[in-house]
């Protein structure tokens, strides 16, 4: 090390190379840059000409100068010069050194300065060969051992120190020091403080100086405006968030910028917060539209790297979420008739809508997922029966405060579960129809005391159809809105801590024109206001919070740390000893080593544990006991010059390179070659920009099966577990497939058997499902799967196979097969069924059929009832999602390996077998072509209209 004034050369030996400079000068002088060599046949013609031109044999002086400067820069850069402010170390004496470092959040902002000073102090101790004791003042989960160590060892530990997102706890340190050393050891103490007095500075200083009966204490204080700024819990204010910042130094005006960041770190807004002289608190409102406000994940002070200047916002701050689900899947085709269209439009501006049916994945229910993630309000349109698991979780969720809003509808009227506010009569009541005496009813003005009170009711709103409540004693208390004739329109009931609300009409305009009016929007808005917020303040008392914890399986679990703050205010992975926090504790718990500040999560919900909820009182360290030396952190800058020197050398090298090019005349040739280089560059960039290979799709449980099933159309049957029945099903579908290939454009592959509990069924347009009398009920997962399959356009042909054997016609009782079918479909939302009407598409989708025989003849075929609007009301494309027969179709279709029929038909005849095959073909065509065939029904009418 060589120090010249303010410049220190860290590798002074390299400076000896400067002696070489004259040699380099001489070498450069005698070796001019080499010209380009040209082989040239007619050189003799040039011979006489060159006498007129003097050739430069010397390097131009400026080129030499450039090269000398280059060499000089390199030599100096290797010597590693550093500009240093002189730093004198803090302390004298021969006592062991006790280094106390405040590693609190307030110290994080100037952490490097602290570390450097600490290193200097330890370095000096090393040069004086004094042992060092290092203590930090934030609480630790395991208190470190206090013993003097060699200074070199301590220097390593100092380099690894990081600030904690915690306040200091100095008295505990003082206690530990007293226990460890007591009166025995005298120390020279250096205390690198964070400048904040939490009321214990006097005691701490006294304790320190008391060590060993009179240690010397040197306190290093930061400048008053270098102490930390704390952000505490913001308040919701009109159109934004009111943030509160606290500082320690009451003097002077100070302006900081508070930023609002989204969860992904994007900056949403910034607001200047100005501290007035004499005040330690400042407030300002960050103006943000509601949608953006819900995105805020973090508030922090721009330019302050400190955990105290960060406030994390969890999902208690975001707006209410509403889950939507409806039966039927027609909306893809006709949005204005979609069950949820008007609800969606009404709620969209005010709440976050969570459509549930789209999210359903095999094996799990979108509804349960959404409830587990937390909903404020759940809206079910025309859903009568939920699967038992869904129903249980909805019930649990309502018990905990959720708000369930249901709309009636044809399915709901047919059957409904018990999650309704009032007892309902079966069926619906039509008003103003051809067979009805009554006129369509208007709505009566809303009563005072109901949530809808005050909403004006326009007289043109009429209800043509509704579900009726059983008149019970307590009915009147549950009615929120009624029709002019007194029948309830909206009923509600408190259920646990939550509420169930039922609209006795549909959510679309089928039954009334209520959804078309502004009143509907206002009513839904009032309901939304009633709905518990997604924000919970107190786990114990508030219903708000309960709504979020509605999960029947995991009641009141603990939140485990997901990301924690380090002292710099950065989110890092939680330390190994971080413990989960019970939900109830969040508002009382303060960060500690076991519960570090940060984000805690469970089931997709997060809670933030912040360093400051209430605005803290920050105080500067003021007077210290006598005999304590006070100094301040000096901002020391040592600037390394090696980098700039190397840069200069590089620049000079480039200049020299250019100069040599110019001198040798190569520049012109380079210019001409540049074109080719450019073409290559374009080619290379083309390569670089070419699209990356497509990412792999998400994994499918059984890719081979899925691939095979998805690549070709094939019929599928559900395996019953009875080998005979399954063999008949297989043979039957084989026969039907052969007939399809022979007679129609359907080129189906060989049929497959499906285990309804485990296999994926979404690939098959049609499932043939023979029902045995002893068929077991479906598991909840399978029920959900079948339900989703039917809702999304699949069709199942159930075959009870018992028409010829059962005696139902005589006794009037349902057959065992039908009972088994009811058992199987107990938890599936089955639409209203009807016998195939005469003009149904099934009767004419390929062959014209009057009846649908199988092995037996005469059993009826049931399909989804086609509401009041022709083909549209059934399912996707007007295809009935369920077809139920009892004629044992597979046995009629079944062929053996030689293509011969396996079973006789009854009453018999080839014609019946032919008709059975035609039935099968019609069913397949019906399923595959949908409303195209339905439209074909109208062809005669269309032709007639065209004047044929």
């Amino acid at each position: 090390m060589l120090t010249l004034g303010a410049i220190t050369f860290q590798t002074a030996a390299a400076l000896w190379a400067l002696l070489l400079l004259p040699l380099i000068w001489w070498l450069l002088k005698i070796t001019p840059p080499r010209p380009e060599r040209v082989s040239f046949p007619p050189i003799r013609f040039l011979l006489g000409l060159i006498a007129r031109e003097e050739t430069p044999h010397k390097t131009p002086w400026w080129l030499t100068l450039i090269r000398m400067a280059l060499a000089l820069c390199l030599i100096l850069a290797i010597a590693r010069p550093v500009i240093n402010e002189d730093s004198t170390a803090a302390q004298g004496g021969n006592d062991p050194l006790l280094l106390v470092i405040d590693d609190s959040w307030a110290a994080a902002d100037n952490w490097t300065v602290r570390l450097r000073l600490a290193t200097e102090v330890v370095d000096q101790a090393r040069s004086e060969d004094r042992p060092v004791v290092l203590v930090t003042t934030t609480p630790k989960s395991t208190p470190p051992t206090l013993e003097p160590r060699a200074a070199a060892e301590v220097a390593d530990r100092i380099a690894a120190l990081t600030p904690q997102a915690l306040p200091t706890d100095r008295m505990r340190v003082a206690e530990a020091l007293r226990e460890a050393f007591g009166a025995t050891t005298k120390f020279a103490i250096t205390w690198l403080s964070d400048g904040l007095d939490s009321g214990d500075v006097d005691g701490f200083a006294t304790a320190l100086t008391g060590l060993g009966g009179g240690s010397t204490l040197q306190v290093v204080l930061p400048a008053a405006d270098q102490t930390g700024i704390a952000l505490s819990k913001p308040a919701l204010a009109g159109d934004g968030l009111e943030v509160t910042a606290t500082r320690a130094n009451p003097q002077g005006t100070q302006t900081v910028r508070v930023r609002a960041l989204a969860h992904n770190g994007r900056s949403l807004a910034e607001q200047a917060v100005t501290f007035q002289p004499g005040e330690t608190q400042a407030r300002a409102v960050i103006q943000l539209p509601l949608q953006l406000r819900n995105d805020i994940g973090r508030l922090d002070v721009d330019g302050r790297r400190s955990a105290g200047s960060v406030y994390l916002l969890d999902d208690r701050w975001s707006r209410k979420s509403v889950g939507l689900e409806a039966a039927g899947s027609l909306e893809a085709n006709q949005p204005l008739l979609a069950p949820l269209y008007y609800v969606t439009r009404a709620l969209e501006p005010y709440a976050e809508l969570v459509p549930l049916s789209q999210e359903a994945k095999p094996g799990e229910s979108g509804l349960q997922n959404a409830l587990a993630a937390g909903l404020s309000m759940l809206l079910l349109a025309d859903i009568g029966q939920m699967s038992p698991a869904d129903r249980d979780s909805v019930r649990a969720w309502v018990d905990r405060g959720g708000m369930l809003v249901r709309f009636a509808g044809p399915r709901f009227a047919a059957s409904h579960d018990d999650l309704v506010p009032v007892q309902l009569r079966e069926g619906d009541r039509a008003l103003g129809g051809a067979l009805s005496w009554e006129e369509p009813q208007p709505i009566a003005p809303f009563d005072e005391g109901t949530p809808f009170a005050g909403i004006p009711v326009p007289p043109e709103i009429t209800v043509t159809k509704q579900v009726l409540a059983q008149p019970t004693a307590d009915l009147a208390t549950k009615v929120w809105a009624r029709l002019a004739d007194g029948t309830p329109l909206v009923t509600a009931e408190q259920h646990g801590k939550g509420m169930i609300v039922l609209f006795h009409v549909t959510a679309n305009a089928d039954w009334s024109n209520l959804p078309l009016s502004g009143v509907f929007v206002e009513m839904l808005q009032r309901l939304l206001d009633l709905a518990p917020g997604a924000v919970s303040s107190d786990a114990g008392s508030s219903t708000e919070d309960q709504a979020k914890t509605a999960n029947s399986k995991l009641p009141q679990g603990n939140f485990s740390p997901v990301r924690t703050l380090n002292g710099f205010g950065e989110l890092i992975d939680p330390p190994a000893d971080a413990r989960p926090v019970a939900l109830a504790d969040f508002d009382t718990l303060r960060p500690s080593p076991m519960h570090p500040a940060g984000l805690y999560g469970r089931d997709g919900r997060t809670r933030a544990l912040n360093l400051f909820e209430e605005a803290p009182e920050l105080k500067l360290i003021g007077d210290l006991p006598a005999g304590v030396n006070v100094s301040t952190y000096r901002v020391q800058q040592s600037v390394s010059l090696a980098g700039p020197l190397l840069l200069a050398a590089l620049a000079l090298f480039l200049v020299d390179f250019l100069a040599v090019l110019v001198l040798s005349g190569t520049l012109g040739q380079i210019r001409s070659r540049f074109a080719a280089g450019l073409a290559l560059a374009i080619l290379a960039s083309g390569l670089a920009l070419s699209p990356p290979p497509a990412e792999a799709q998400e994994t499918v449980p059984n890719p081979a099966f899925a691939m095979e099933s998805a690549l070709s159309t094939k019929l599928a049957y559900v395996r019953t577990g009875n080998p005979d029945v399954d063999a008949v099903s297989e043979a039957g579908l084989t026969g039907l497939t052969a007939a399809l290939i022979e007679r129609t454009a359907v080129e189906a592959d060989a049929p497959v058997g499906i285990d309804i509990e485990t296999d994926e069924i979404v690939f098959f347009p049609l499932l043939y499902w023979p029902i045995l009398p002893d068929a077991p009920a479906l598991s909840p997962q399978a029920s959900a799967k079948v339900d989703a399959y039917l809702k999304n356009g699949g069709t199942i042909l159930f075959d009870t196979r018992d028409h010829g054997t059962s005696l139902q016609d005589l006794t009037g009782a349902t057959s065992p097969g039908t009972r088994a079918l009811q058992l199987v479909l107990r938890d599936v939302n089955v639409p209203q069924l009807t016998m195939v009407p005469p003009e149904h598409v099934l009767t004419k989708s390929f062959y014209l059929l009057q009846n649908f025989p199988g092995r037996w003849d005469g059993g009826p075929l049931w399909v989804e009832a086609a509401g009041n609007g022709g083909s549209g009301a059934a399912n996707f494309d007007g295809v009935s999602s369920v077809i139920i027969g009892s004629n044992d179709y597979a046995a009629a279709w079944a062929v053996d390996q030689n293509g011969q029929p396996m079973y006789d038909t009854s009453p018999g005849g080839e014609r019946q077998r032919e008709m059975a095959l035609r039935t099968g073909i019609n069913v397949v065509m019906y399923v595959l072509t949908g409303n195209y065939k339905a439209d074909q029904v109208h062809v005669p009418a269309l032709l007639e209209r065209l004047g044929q």
Partner: protein
Amino acid sequence: MLATGLNILVAHRAQKTPHLTPLDEAGRLAEAYPALLVQADRIAHTVAMGFHGRRRPGTGESFWQFQRYRPGDEAQRIDWRKSARSDQLYVRENEWEAANTIWMWTSGSPGMHFKSKPAQSTKAERATLLMLTLAALMLNGGERVGLLGSGRTPVYTRSGLERLALMHQALDGGRELPDAVPPRHSNVIIFSDFLLPIEAWRDRLAPIAERQVRGHLVQVFDPAEETLPYTGRKEFEETGGSLRFIIGRTETVREAYRERIAQHRDELRSLARRLGWSFTLHHTDQPAQQAILPLYGLLEGSLTPRTRV
């Protein structure tokens, strides 16, 4: 986009490096011209059959005259159809048709292998191509073509072109015009860059011209040699030689150099004129066809050396 770029690149490269031997290329070039019958004022007395009619009876294929049968004539040669019209017996005589002999020489000096940037090939390649093309045309015309200094007899069959090419490869030109002098009344075509001083050429060409040989000089020149396109500081070295020196600013000597080249060429032209020979200039950045066409005309005689200046 990338694929098309590559295609263009490949096509471009394919265009730039044709995989053709000079022989193939010469054959291709020759296809474009009819067979070449070299103009000959006087034909050397050779027994070789050719197409140059000697306006006297002899061996040949064209009819020349009928002559009374004289005893001693072979009976086979009697033209019976003619004889049947009269009482005389007539013998049919054909014109004596002989072949012309053309001797060629291509300079093989190291400088001939020079190729600058805009040029398509080296001077030597181009000269060989021109020579073989002309030879192919002449062989088609029934002429005899030989290589000066090869010591071999001229070839005269159409398949002789290959032999000629091999001969040329083995001979490799030589730096200077060989001392071997072609026979009288033959033709000589010399391909070279003619960079030797004019005196040297004068000395070499004089003995050939003495023997009433028609000569054609073809100067194959590189465009860089013509224009001296270099700029800045350059070190020039003689191709295949030891001479080398540096010129500080090449552009300053360009004018003077061009003048010198022009003067040298003028001297060559006047030398050719004096000998009654032709002089043709060809640059290697031009397609070979551009040289073939005037040479064809000159050799055929439809273009006189006078008109070609």
